[in-house]
């Protein structure tokens, strides 16, 4: 299966190379970038796939669900449009008006179900995932009874956006999430999620990892002159101890953030604190390295912010799978530090050769790199929406023997999972 997709990938790439000879990024993105900075081309594992255009390579059919699954939820709480899980809403809007959308489901390669599972917010703004499994289940029951396409493949050519902490495990606490596992009904579908950790229950083979939503206009409003010299060596703002839930430490971030604080709070090279300054974005643009340690979940919007502001991300999360990992060579762009090596972080960072650091900065300056991390409104070529479609296109064509079921064959167990999930929504 994997080799087949590889061959298809190579052929596709060869085709694109002959058809589009000059792949220079000529974009005017939502972020206005100065063209004077020399950048380096990003060659992913399959060539310059960030610049691929998905239009014409796949067709997506968007199910028309009753508005109680999407619009009504959004109406109840408008904060869903600005928090870091807003990708599910914007993806829906993008697909509705995209060129890859088809109104004829017979010719569709992929089917999209617009259900906003991460929009049940507490007064503080945190999404409660307790009703999400039931909501998802109810949506799947609807599409399987109204359209034949779910039963035809039991969801293998369907994709869902699950941007919550642990994806389709639908819980914010890791142990609970692992216990629940991925929702059984989704075990054949493609999941587009922010969570990614190797050898973890909540990351399925074939999932597409996306960056968390970060508001593009807000970040653009805080851009400063590129001439401003980068004088901060390492920068981080955030919690080190989650005093509310883990006062003793060691649980939150697997002790990694606490280790950063204890080892480097007195180090003048490390500008780390819990204070939330108003110049947070501007400070990132004055820093060379930005720490992106794990929190309760391994991913964070800090990665997106670091890429936009040209600060080299230092990723401290064991076995994390970063967004669009098959298209973006993160090893060459960021610095990966094992959690056990955190006490030696200063040695690690200062022993990186200067040429490597300059090269990473050049790679970060590439506009297609910055564009791929954003969800701008309206969508622009090369942005995260297009990268998701590229990822879906790379999985085509479907392996007919695996995707489509023989008549009468049933794989999914509709009664699996905790009893609470089976209640109707």
């Amino acid at each position, binding site marked *: 299966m994997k080799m087949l997709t590889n061959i298809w990938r190579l052929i596709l790439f060869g085709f694109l190379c002959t058809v589009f000879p000059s792949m220079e990024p000529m974009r005017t993105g939502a972020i206005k970038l100065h063209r004077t900075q020399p950048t380096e081309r990003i060659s992913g594992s399959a060539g310059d796939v960030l610049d691929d255009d998905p239009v014409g390579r796949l067709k997506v059919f968007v199910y028309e669900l009753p508005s109680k699954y999407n619009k009504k939820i959004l109406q109840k709480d408008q904060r869903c449009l600005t928090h870091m899980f807003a990708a599910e809403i914007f993806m829906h809007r993008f697909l509705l008006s995209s060129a890859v959308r088809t109104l004829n489901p017979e010719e569709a390669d992929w089917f999209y179900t617009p259900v906003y599972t991460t929009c049940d917010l507490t007064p503080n703004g*945190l999404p409660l995932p307790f009703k999400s499994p039931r909501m998802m289940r109810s949506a799947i029951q609807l599409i399987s009874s109204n359209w034949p396409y779910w039963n035809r493949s039991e969801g293998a050519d369907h994709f869902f956006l699950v941007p919550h902490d642990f994806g389709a495990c639908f819980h914010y606490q890791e142990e609970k999430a692992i216990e629940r596992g991925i929702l059984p009904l989704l075990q054949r579908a493609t999941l587009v999620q922010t969570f990614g950790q190797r050898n973890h229950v909540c990351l399925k083979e074939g999932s597409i990892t996306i960056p968390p939503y970060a508001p593009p206009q807000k970040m653009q409003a805080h851009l400063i002159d590129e001439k401003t010299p980068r*004088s901060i060596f390492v920068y981080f703002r955030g919690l080190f101890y989650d005093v509310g839930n883990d006062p003793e430490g060691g649980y939150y971030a697997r002790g990694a953030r606490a280790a950063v604080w*204890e*080892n480097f709070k007195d*180090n003048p090279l490390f500008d780390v604190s819990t204070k939330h300054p108003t110049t947070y974005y501007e400070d990132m643009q004055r820093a060379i390295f930005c720490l992106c340690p794990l929190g309760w979940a391994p991913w964070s919007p800090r990665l997106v912010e670091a890429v936009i502001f040209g600060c080299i991300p230092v990723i401290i999360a064991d076995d994390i799978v970063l967004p669009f990992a098959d298209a973006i060579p993160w090893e060459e762009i960021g610095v990966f530090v094992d959690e056990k090596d955190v*006490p030696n972080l*200063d040695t690690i960072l200062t022993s990186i050769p200067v040429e490597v650091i300059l090269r990473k900065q050049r790679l970060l300056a590439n506009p297609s790199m910055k564009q791929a991390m954003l969800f701008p409104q309206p969508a622009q070529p090369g942005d995260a929406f297009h990268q998701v479609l590229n990822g879906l296109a790379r999985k085509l064509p479907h392996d007919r023997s695996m995707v489509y079921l023989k008549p009468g064959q049933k794989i999914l167990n509709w009664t699996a999972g905790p009893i609470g999930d089976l209640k109707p929504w």
Partner: protein
Amino acid sequence: MKLSALHQSYLNRRSSNFRGLSGDSSADGSMKSQASVFWLVLHGLCCLVSLVLGFRFSRLVFFLLFSPSTTTNLYSMPFRQAVEASVFQLSTEAANQVLPVNTTTPRVVVGRHGIRIRPWPHPDPVEVMKAHRIIERVQREQRAQFGVKAPRTLIAVTPTYVRTFQTLHMTGVMHSLMLVPYDLVWIVVEAGGVTNETTSLIAKSGLRNIHVGFNERMPNSWANRHRLEAKMRLHALKIIREEKLDGIVIFVDDSNMHSMELFDEIQNVKWIGALSVGILAHSNSAEESSFSLAWKEADNSVIPVQGPACNSSNRLIGWHTFNSLPFLEKSATHIDDRGIILPRKLEWAGFVLNSRLLWKDFTDKPMWMKDLDLFDGVDDMESPLLLLNDASVVEPLGRCGLQVMLWWLRVEARSDSKFPPGWVIDPPLEITVPSKHTPWPDALPELPMSDKIVDAQGETLAVKRPGKTRRSRSKHDARNKRKHESRNAEVDISEKQTKQN
């Protein structure tokens, strides 16, 4: 991070459910008080236990008792932690679980981990140095990418002469020029001929300089000074022409104040550019009222800036000059005067030239540039605009004069003021008044009931001091001209006092 409040609320809901349950069971009125007392006692016990343990162990209890499926395969992972090893063991046993994994055993395990702290969590100086080198290299790269692409050499022209405030002013200018990141040639024209003092001062900068003397002495009146300075600058321009120096000429007066952005901005000049100069018309007078009165008489909206004026399409249409009229009666004519020192209409400092304009046989020289030889005998060259046939070719710099990056200031001491050559005090100063009551750091503590009288026998006591290599000095010892620092003398005086007490 953001989940904390959520987690908290979740747990609160759980604990409140628990409480609700017990509340329901005690529906009877008489039972209610017993239940509440029981809960109070339990709560107090829990608090005591938490105090002893050092953490809220109620969460642990809830987890153990009420978690829906505690898996049977619990084990504790060996960790080292900085504090509370025993307590830590208790929590590890309960909190850790093995991941139910289908493929390989993962490297990453959920649960409580140790906080790794290295034995000496302090910055290593070698690493700090390495980091600074990295920062420097990154900043250099940034400058190369976003700064000026092909930086030209700067040629700074400074007229100066030896006087009290020369060191003060020249040090400021010198430090500004040393910080300039571009190549620099400093042409210093000295009125009254080349002196050692100026030479040694300039040599400290380490900049490439051309130090020439000018045969006239600096006059005392401000008007004549301005004229002589203009002549000295012309002389420097002639030198540039002879040496065929290539770059941008800036007029750096020694008492002016320059910002670093200025040197970046003037790299944008093509032929001749003009900048806004902030005028700090300083008043030498002790009475502030006259100056502020004059300021108020002048239009309050007057911005003391000289420079180019542009229209809305950023084209040069005229010049802003400093309105000196309200101050004329109070202006200083001579250096010593107690009045306001006024600038000329347009100061030389606000102009920059491309040095190629001065070259004799430069083929691409524009038509509007006059030859320098025409000005040989001219008495008063007010500004470099006189070098041009057509003043409209001047390029306005600094966002069309909106940015003020240099300030004009003239501060001088009295013309007859004395100062030690090179500002080295040699021979040392005489002490005229010994201090009595100030406690010196290495003085012996004084006895509280002593009499602090200096008498004529003080000097004899001072001589007999044991074990001190420093020699004493008092006002009666004027004949002993021994070299030592004045600070030692003051310490000695105090010791003399303590000896008496």
